[in-house]
């Protein structure tokens, strides 16, 4: 509970005594490359395979002659948009970006780089953390959209190449009774999850004390806490927006 209070104070400190606008533009651009571009590979691989596996398993479970083939791709589509892309990729994002944020800030803390900034009168939390949070919130929704596309692509190849369903059925299914709000919902989830991951990981890294051992612990704890927060938020958002 105490650390929750400290977390909110930390969030507040991000927005006080800031640097110039152009400084932030430069820092945010750099961070966008760090968190977005550098995550493309892992997000791509995971998405394509999730799409393939989901298609094959859905087909395997729907062995009734009364259910038309296109239902398979419809199920894959809804799973991708509602859960697989925003939530599962968030777990991966926490593992990759969250741990690196906590590790970087933790190292800066124990090697006194953060003190060096503060001595120069820079608000280190705002200077170091705000660009990371903003970059994550900008880039993660884009990764989610990309991931949805790649899941559907992976599903398409797995489905058509193994002869589970025809390309016509697959394309019909992913357009059948498409609810546009689901995309909005996915983007909202992505915004919330990325904010949670970036801010929790920054918090864990920023307040590291001790040595390199503690930096490792801060990284691990950043990932664990981010994942828990993402799953809780996932549940809350489902209640709020779908219920």
């Amino acid at each position, binding site marked *: 509970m105490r650390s929750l209070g400290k977390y909110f104070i930390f969030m507040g400190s991000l927005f006080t005594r800031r*640097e110039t606008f152009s400084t932030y533009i430069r820092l945010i651009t750099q961070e966008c490359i760090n968190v977005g571009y550098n995550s493309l590979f892992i997000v791509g691989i995971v998405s394509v395979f999730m799409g393939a596996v989901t298609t094959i398993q859905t087909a395997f479970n729907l062995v009734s002659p009364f259910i038309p083939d296109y239902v398979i791709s419809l199920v894959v589509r809804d799973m991708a948009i509602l859960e697989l892309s925003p939530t599962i990729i968030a777990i991966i994002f926490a593992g990759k970006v969250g741990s690196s944020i906590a590790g970087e800030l933790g*190292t*800066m803390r124990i*090697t*006194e*780089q953060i*003190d*060096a900034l*503060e*001595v*120069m*009168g*820079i608000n280190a939390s705002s200077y170091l953390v705000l660009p990371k949070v903003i970059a994550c919130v900008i880039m993660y929704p884009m990764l989610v959209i990309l991931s949805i596309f790649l899941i559907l692509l992976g599903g398409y190849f797995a489905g058509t190449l193994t002869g589970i369903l025809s390309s016509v059925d697959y394309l019909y299914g992913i357009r059948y009774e498409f609810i546009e709000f689901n995309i909005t919902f996915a983007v909202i989830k992505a915004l919330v999850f990325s904010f949670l991951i970036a801010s929790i990981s920054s918090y864990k890294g920023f307040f590291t004390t001790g040595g390199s051992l503690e930096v490792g612990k801060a990284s691990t704890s950043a990932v664990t806490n981010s994942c828990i927060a993402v799953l809780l938020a996932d549940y809350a958002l489902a209640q709020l927006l779908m219920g």
Partner: protein
Amino acid sequence: MIEINNISKSFKGKQVLFDISGTFFKGKNNLIIGSSGTGKSVLLKNIVGLFTPDLGDVKYNERSFINGSEQDRKQIRREIGMLFQGGALFDSKNIEENVKFPLDILTDFPEDEKIDRVNFCLERVGLVNINKKMPSEISGGMKKRVGIARAIVNKPNYLFCDEPNSGLDPQTGIKIDNLIKEITSEYLITTIIVTHDMNSVIEMGDHIMFLLEGKKLWEGTNDEITKSDVKELNDFVFATQLMKQMYLR
């Protein structure tokens, strides 16, 4: 000149500093000495504003750093340079960017003027042709030198060094000490150095403050230190046989 008045500081109920007062002089190497864990770093951090003391005041040439206006504090910060224990260079920036950083933040000089100043400072600490290297590519002693260059790049009136020669071999340590000593008298800086190295104390201690368990026990010069009758100070100073042989004949 820096004056500290009745500084006390605790962390979570555990008091680390007890009512410390003292003066640090311009153009002199002012040392804060004492064994590990006595609160030297905490005192230094209270002076530079990384911690706020629970009680007491810190005055930079009569300007209060604790109770002064935000404007005063900002101005004082511009006049401060600090060398950290491991150098505290920014990992993501190369050597030139590291040294230039205070100028980027605190001044609006044109770029070529900044680069000139950076090169001057790097040369002053004896480093040339490493501008584009990253901190991970240079040795510990070089990192300290870069740290000194970064600390003096904005022509500070006050220089702070936390254990400037710890973690270095004795020879490199002495070189760093000499560099700080020269810079201090050359630019008439008020320099405060935290150390537990007796060699530094004897070589460069113009004015020395001795701390024990968060309390100031003694203040004086390096000539006086070997003649003091404070038992705890003698225990600290003559902890090694060599020192005993040199001074207690």
